[in-house]
């Protein structure tokens, strides 16, 4: 070797690693084509580095706990449809392995989810289900490029998100709380979208949440496993115990199971720990059934409340929708320190209710603005039968002295939930007008229900509130 060989070797090794991480295992002879005297040494070092990956892995989990890593990457090196070259295993789900692959046609990395042998009972139904999920389009969902079949192998091709998973972030130093909350918020928004389209994930966990280079969280591997299982296309899968809801343990669950799982993830992202003490599966099952214990650092009262709400043992006690969950997280981010005590907040809400009720009934001036409420489900007219719960919640409007009517707490989940309203089947969107040009706010609404005296659910009416011209 010449005097500059060490530097050249180091450069070549870096180059090799760069290509290796992109899925190209370039031979030493090719890398050092211009430096034939270095080939043997370069090959030796490459071998050493390739076998030293255990130094990079840091979870220390026993083999039985490493559910997220493929154990038998049998598809390595395979080319699907003459186009997708499978390069590296990157994850393991309940029934399938996920690989980083290279799309030789479009010359880009992609992620390929490939069910393990014997796990797809009905390939046609599996593909139909996968296509249904692939139609979901949301910034918080990893885009699906292709759903295809090559011989016996069905597979799903999606965008390869560089940047790692939330599991990677949690395994390292604990993320900042606001960063963690923003990630969970991103996921809650995406879940709400999917739930509204009738798709439930059922395996929300840090390893299924990807963080891209912009720091944005995306749900990966969306819903295929469980929605497909429900339709009988897959053999049953156990899911991931640590993130399962109590009802999932007995084979049940709906969209609120995703909310529970996301609550577990929120807790883990904020503390680095699960909301359970038990670690072995049997004890963990018992604890999940008994109820999670939220332990956030002191001073995190709002987040503790949100976490607790999402982790309620009974689905009915949890957030009724991911949108509700998201709204509370948003509020927590906007107001990291509670400005009012609970009592003060109630008092303020009561004042708002009184003002709103007065405005409804008389349409006279309130402060510097007036309000008209129209019933969107019936003839457009002034209405006095606004549900009491809405008025109590101050849902109609907060009228401030500036003459501008603001809606800081219009039918957001926080208040709807506090007053036992639940969002059910979606009806579309309702526009709330604040009276300022261009200030209409589209709020995704569901079908609102409230309980009557016999505890039966009856539909609420939907209202449009808008200010009238000031009468001075």
């Amino acid at each position, binding site marked *: 070797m010449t005097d500059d*060989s060490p530097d050249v*070797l180091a450069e070549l090794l870096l180059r090799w690693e760069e290509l290796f991480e992109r899925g190209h295992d370039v031979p030493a002879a090719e890398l050092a084509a211009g430096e034939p005297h270095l080939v043997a040494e370069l090959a030796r070092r490459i071998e*050493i580095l390739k076998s030293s990956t255990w130094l990079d892995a840091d979870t220390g989990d*026993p083999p039985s706990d490493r559910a997220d890593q493929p154990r038998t990457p049998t598809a390595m090196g395979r080319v699907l449809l003459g186009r997708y070259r499978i390069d590296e295993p990157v994850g393991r789900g309940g029934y399938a392995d996920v690989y980083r692959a290279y799309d030789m046609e479009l010359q880009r990395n992609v992620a390929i989810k490939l069910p393990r042998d014997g796990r797809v009972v009905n390939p046609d139904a599996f593909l139909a289900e996968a296509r249904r999920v692939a139609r979901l389009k949301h910034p918080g969902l990893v885009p699906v490029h292709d759903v295809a079949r090559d011989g016996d192998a069905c597979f799903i091709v999606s965008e390869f998100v560089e940047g790692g998973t939330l599991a990677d*972030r949690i395994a390292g*130093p*604990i993320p*900042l709380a606001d960063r963690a909350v923003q990630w969970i918020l991103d996921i809650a928004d995406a879940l709400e979208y999917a739930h509204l389209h009738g798709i439930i994930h059922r395996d929300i966990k840090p390893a299924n949440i990807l963080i891209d280079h912009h720091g944005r969280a995306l749900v990966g591997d969306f819903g295929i496993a469980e929605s497909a299982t429900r339709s009988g296309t897959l053999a049953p899968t156990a899911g991931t115990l640590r993130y399962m809801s109590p009802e999932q343990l007995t084979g049940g669950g709906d969209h609120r199971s995703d909310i529970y799982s996301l609550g577990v993830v929120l807790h883990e992202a904020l503390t680095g720990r699960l909301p359970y003490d038990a670690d072995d599966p049997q004890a963990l099952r018992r604890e999940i059934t008994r109820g999670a214990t939220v332990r956030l*650092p002191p001073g995190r009262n709002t987040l503790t409340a949100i976490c607790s709400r999402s982790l309620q043992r009974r689905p009915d006690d949890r957030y009724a929708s991911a949108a509700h969950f998201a709204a509370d997280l948003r509020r927590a981010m906007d107001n990291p320190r509670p400005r009012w005590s609970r009592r003060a907040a109630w008092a303020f809400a009561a004042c708002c209710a009184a003002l709103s009720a007065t405005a409804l009934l008389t349409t006279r001036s309130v402060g510097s603005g007036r309000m008209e409420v129209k019933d969107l489900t019936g003839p457009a007219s002034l209405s006095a039968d606004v549900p009491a719960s809405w008025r109590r919640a101050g849902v109609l409007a907060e009228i401030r002295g500036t003459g501008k009517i603001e809606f800081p707490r219009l039918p957001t989940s926080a208040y709807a939930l506090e007053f036992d309203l639940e969002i059910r089947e979606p009806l579309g969107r309702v526009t709330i007008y604040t009276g300022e040009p261009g200030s209409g706010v589209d709020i995704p609404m569901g079908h609102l229900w409230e309980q009557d005296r016999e505890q039966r659910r009856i539909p609420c009416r939907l209202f449009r509130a808008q200010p009238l011209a000031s009468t001075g």
Partner: protein
Amino acid sequence: MLPPENGALPQATTQGMTLSSDTGLQGLIDGVRSGDATARELLLDHACDRLYRLTRKMLRHYPTLRRWEATDDVLQNSLVRLHRALAEVDVATVAHFFNLAATQIRRELLDLVKHHMGPEGAGRHHHTDHQPPDDDGGSLQNRFMEPENMAMWTEFHEAVARLAAEHREVIDLLFYDGISQHEAADVLGVSIRTLKRRWQQAKLVLHEALRDGRFT
């Protein structure tokens, strides 16, 4: 003999990959320095978590200790000591903290082998004939196998402790402290490329120190 890493590459800016923007570690350090007890606790929690994870990694081949609660039993004293050792230190910089944490973690892992693995101690399950068959034509000499018993782990930790500082510090950050490469680059004030180069170099040097990765 492997060449020393001379850092001849230009150091790219570390802007855009700051520790604080990604993980909040710098925020925690600042919090500790300004007397924030919660920040100190979180930082200590992180170090304890690393010790916990690495212990589990070491114990994965010991069926009787594989269950997590058994690991906890073995770990309890080590965690208490680590916590005390770091709690009394005035953490001035991120690098300072991680250096101390890695040293303490390594010490505890070695101590754990010495005192908690029964009367046979480090020699228990010590055998060197379990290497996988060389089935792909490559040389075993060019493999860097993960330690499989306590004796090997002892050798590993001691070999790391003997490395030159420039190699040891990157192993400390990435293996013992378990932070990401971007964070490690930030802690050391070097570009990610330089960090990757040092990491490669450190692994190669360590492989050599462990008699070509085969331990003794």
